[in-house]
């Protein structure tokens, strides 16, 4: 039976793997470990953007729609814009809260009244600390939320009554909760939009609309542009600090993951190098012999490179599988939600593992330089 060279190649290849299974197993463990962590981090990196932008949406509005800031009448928009905002682009909007700010008095002291939709404010600012309880209904005309500085100023606590007056109009409300937001909100009193509009005598008017929009910074930018096109005469602008912070955090996380993967790959390469160096010592005599028998260097090296590539493919596959489980576990611990495995990570993991294996096989590649006469003499 005549065998083609390729068949003999694979025959030698199989025997080579069988003969060196101890050392190769060590290299495979190193490769699988490196591939597992790399695969987990890549999965996390791809999912982190989505997970983090979701998290960011609980940190308040990231887009504001407001009339141009020139002239007092122009500073108020028609509340009907809410229909136009949440209509066509509703899928990207997590929450939308209109605000009407009214300069009112509580007793003799002035206070800023913010009329809004309580349900949307709660959704947008879930991180606010509330002593007492949220007002959950947007139509609740008898309750209010009071910022902690204002509550201290007026001596209010949950359940207290407060009388508010603007010009000739007044309203009496029950304090449902005291909020701590860490910003200007701490000095304000939040009522339903209707109450503020009636008190100010500005029915159907709002000062601005705050939006919480999901997506990456670039997606939010695109959304803003699109919305501005549908709302002529109004300013639609992203909250720059928040968008910049999101972009910066995402970039830093990606950078951290990239360099961690690089470090892991370097360490994995060193592990594979150590195994391959020992293997090269063991095989130097065989390579010398093969060269003495007339074996072309490239044909001998193809055996070792095929071996390294096979190691990379197997190590990458094992690593990817473990990496998916690792990513799920890490996702659960960090984000409270399992990371979804990305198939795109599989070929990347395999490519990285093969690259590491081929780099780690450097000592075997150097065997091509052995001089058969010296090896056969036992030098």
């Amino acid at each position, binding site marked *: 039976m005549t065998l*083609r*060279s390729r068949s003999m190649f694979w025959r030698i290849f199989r025997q080579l793997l069988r003969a060196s299974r101890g050392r190769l197993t060590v290299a495979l463990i190193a490769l699988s470990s490196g591939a597992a962590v790399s695969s987990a981090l890549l999965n996390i990196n791809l999912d982190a953007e989505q997970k983090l932008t979701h998290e960011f949406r609980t940190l308040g509005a990231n887009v504001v729609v407001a009339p141009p800031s020139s002239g007092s009448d122009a500073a108020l928009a028609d509340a009907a814009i809410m229909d136009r905002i949440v209509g066509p682009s509703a899928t990207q909007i997590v929450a939308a809260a209109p605000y009407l700010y009214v300069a009112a008095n509580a007793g003799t002291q002035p206070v800023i009244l913010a009329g809004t939709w309580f349900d949307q404010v709660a959704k947008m600012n879930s991180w606010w600390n509330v002593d007492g309880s949220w007002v959950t209904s947007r139509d609740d005309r008898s309750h209010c939320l009071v910022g902690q500085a204002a509550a201290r100023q007026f001596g209010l606590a949950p359940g207290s009554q407060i009388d508010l007056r603007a010009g000739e109009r007044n309203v009496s409300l029950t304090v449902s909760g005291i909020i701590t937001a860490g910003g200007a909100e701490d000095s304000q009193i939040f009522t339903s939009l209707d109450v503020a509009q009636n008190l100010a005598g500005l029915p159907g008017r709002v000062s601005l609309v705050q939006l919480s929009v999901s997506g990456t910074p670039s997606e939010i930018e695109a959304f803003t542009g699109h919305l501005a096109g549908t709302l002529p005469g109004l300013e639609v602008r992203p909250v720059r600090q928040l968008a910049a912070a999101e972009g910066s955090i995402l970039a830093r996380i990606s950078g951290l993951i990239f360099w961690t993967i690089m470090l892991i790959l370097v360490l994995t390469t060193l592990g594979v190098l150590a195994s391959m160096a020992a293997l090269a010592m063991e095989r130097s005599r065989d390579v010398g012999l093969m060269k003495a*028998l007339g074996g072309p260097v490239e044909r001998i090296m193809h055996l070792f490179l095929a071996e390294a590539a096979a190691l990379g493919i197997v190590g990458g596959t094992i690593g990817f599988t473990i990496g998916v489980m690792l990513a799920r576990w890490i996702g659960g611990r960090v984000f409270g939600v399992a990371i979804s495995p990305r198939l795109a990570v599989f070929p990347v993991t395999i490519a990285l593992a093969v690259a590491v294996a081929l780099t780690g096989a450097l000592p075997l590649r150097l065997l091509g330089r052995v001089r058969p*006469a010296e090896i056969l003499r036992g030098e």
Partner: protein
Amino acid sequence: MAPLVQVENLEKRFDAIRALYHVSFEIEAGEWIAIMGPSGSGKTTLINILGGLDHPTSGRVVVDDMEIGQLSERELTRYRSDKIGFVFQQFHLVPYLTALENVMLAQYFHSITDESEAAEALRRVGLEDRLEHLPAQLSGGEQQRVAIARALINHPKLILADEPTGNLDEDNEATILNLLHELHSAGHTILVVTHSQAIGNLADRRIELEHGRLARISLPVR
């Protein structure tokens, strides 16, 4: 007809050490030559140069019309697989390949593999029931017979045997010498490096080296 091997003023240096110098001789096709001499006399260096494992420092070595000193590494590799059959004292089989695969390895490096031809080569050396055995499962004599089958498989012009019985007991030595005798009778050209006067006396001629120089070329004492 030109001799199969022509060596003229061969010199080989390893740094300051002259391993061979002023060595000249010729070998006709079909001859059995014994290369003899004490340890360090340059026998193995000579056979390595003839086998294309080493370059001469100066002088001319021509085997089958190919001047070895002029060959590139790639051409030397081709030369070894086409023209030379090696038999080493230490057998030098690949430990993880079976007897059959060790013979097929030489075919693989030469051209294409033919399993039945490799099995026939092993049958000729009396190892038809050892085809699938690994070297570690074979005796020293059996391993050397595998090496001889491997050396013959590509029909080389020249068989170079470096102390082929050096690691064998008397029985196995006799077997290997019988095999070499058969090869010689079949027209193969054989160079055997040996310390043994008995083996030297089996050859057609003896090339004797001393301190890297050609001491004499003699006929065997029968």
